[in-house]
């Protein structure tokens, strides 16, 4: 790029006008493009505390920006926009607008944890990135990830019956993620299973799928458990 500074201009800061008059002078034409300043005008230092309530980000305040995480990162080698050090810095100063700009990059973390093992201050950058993703989900900035939806289906069944029913979990997950039940791999899986599974087991599976029994003496354990978990979440997030 001939002019380096152009790389620093995000599209949303460009202001173009079809016709523009400044102080009585018509500047339409070549001079009609204005760039809004990129100055950071405030910090939101409370954000660090908010993020630290998410598992994985507890040590984010320890970072001293050495860059070991980014240097060792598997994804950074693929994508120069993938920069854990930078996101940690933004998190510490609460520059959330800047973080949100990278919402479509942060998820690319492959959890190889090289950053975690190399960090001299035990910041655990991989955890920070996971925490950022969860925060963005909670804020509705990004849609719930399939794994979150799966977890919710799984947990809901545990609360209800103290156990999960595989077919039921899959049904719920596919329904909520708007996926077809007739996945080729699933059809193949069922076909082979029905061939090999002893009759007694097949019958029991079928019965369980229909009757959905609870764990013995489950009682109101699920209710208590669910209340406890939501209390814990509340106390971590307020």
């Amino acid at each position, binding site marked *: 790029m001939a002019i380096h500074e152009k790389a*620093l201009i995000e599209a949303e800061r460009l202001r173009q006008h079809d016709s523009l008059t400044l102080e009585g002078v018509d500047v339409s034409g070549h001079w009609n493009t204005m760039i809004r*300043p*990129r*100055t*950071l*005008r*405030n*910090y939101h*230092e409370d954000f*660090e505390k908010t993020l630290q309530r998410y598992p994985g980000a507890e040590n984010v*305040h*320890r970072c*001293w*920006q050495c860059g070991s995480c980014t240097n060792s990162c598997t994804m950074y080698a693929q994508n120069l926009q993938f920069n854990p050090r*930078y996101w940690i*810095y*933004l998190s*510490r*100063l609460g*520059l959330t607008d*800047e973080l949100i700009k990278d919402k479509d990059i942060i998820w690319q973390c492959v959890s190889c944890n090289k950053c975690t093992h190399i960090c001299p*201050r035990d910041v655990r950058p991989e955890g920070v990135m996971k925490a950022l993703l969860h925060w963005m989900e909670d804020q509705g900035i990004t849609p719930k990830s399939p794994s979150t939806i799966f977890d919710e289906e799984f947990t809901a069944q545990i609360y209800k019956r103290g156990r999960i029913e595989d077919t039921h979990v899959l049904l719920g997950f596919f329904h909520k993620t708007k996926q077809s039940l007739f996945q080729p791999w699933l059809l193949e899986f069922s076909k082979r299973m029905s061939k090999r599974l002893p009759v007694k087991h097949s019958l029991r599976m079928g019965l369980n799928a229909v009757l959905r029994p609870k764990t013995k003496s489950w009682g109101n354990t699920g209710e208590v458990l669910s209340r406890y978990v939501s209390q814990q979440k509340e106390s971590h997030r307020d």
Partner: protein
Amino acid sequence: MQDTVLVVGAGPAGLSAAASVANAGYQAVLVEKETVLGGAPILSGYAKLVPSGEWAKEAIGRMIHNVEAHPRISVHKGAQVERFGGEPGQFSATLSTGQTVSAGATILATGFTHFDSVNKPEWGFGTFEDVITTSQMEQMVASGKITCPSDGRVPERVAILLCVGSRDRQIGREWCSKICCTVSANLAIEIKELSPQTEVFIYYMDIRTFGLYEDRFYWKSQEEFKTKFVKARIAEITASGDGRLLLKGEDTLVKRPIMIPFDLVVHAIGMDPNLDNPRLAQTFGITLQHHGYLERAEFYTNPCGTTRPGVYACGAAYGPETIDDSIAQGAAAASRAMADLHALAKAG
């Protein structure tokens, strides 16, 4: 005469030198230009010292007490050496009080002068009431309450700017003042202890909390007291229009200009050569190094030496120094002086 050592300056280095001389059975004459002993920690009202965490008044106070109570130390306060002459083993000094001191050796513990922040006008000291120096912040901590001088409110945000009067070719300060990073981290801890709702930001180029100061001050301020370290050299401090201050600069790590509101800005001021050094050099017949500190003699075989035999030095007179190392150097200079006097006496 050969059992007397003249010590000039009664800061940590000079107090330590005088005490070492006297404890070894020699006589010490301590000359201090101010009317109180203790040097910068006492004169500038430091709070808790690095790294001991003891209050300056108590720690340096013990040194002062030892010196004042010692039968073999005579103290001249409010006095300066005006004329100095002679050879090792037989120096003679005339004080501004008119008294004459005969001594076999002389130790210069003449220290430093705090950088005057007015010399960096773009950072607002002297223009805005809420821009203060680390010395003033030390006094505020010692007073037990963190407030903005302009209206007495408790600051929501405090910025500490490092390297004010250090590492700055623009103003001829081509040295690192060594201790400001650690002192600033320590101040950040103390501010947070006194005022938990205040957020402290330290603006740095590098952090030089050397040796054992690393975890005890830098890491502790960050991990336990949530001090935020921002890599930015501030360009300018202006008024925000609503009673706060605006810090302008470039955040090196986000590669973006910043303009952040603050309530209180603290300059981590460096250590200049003592303003008296040109006069001291002339009086004592020694030379200064190119920054204006006392010139060290060849160090490996002549530690604590100056360019004049029989005249020794210690502490911040040589360049920015910590209190602990100044005390150690005071003791070292005392032992050099006494060893050389002992050799002279044996030879004579």
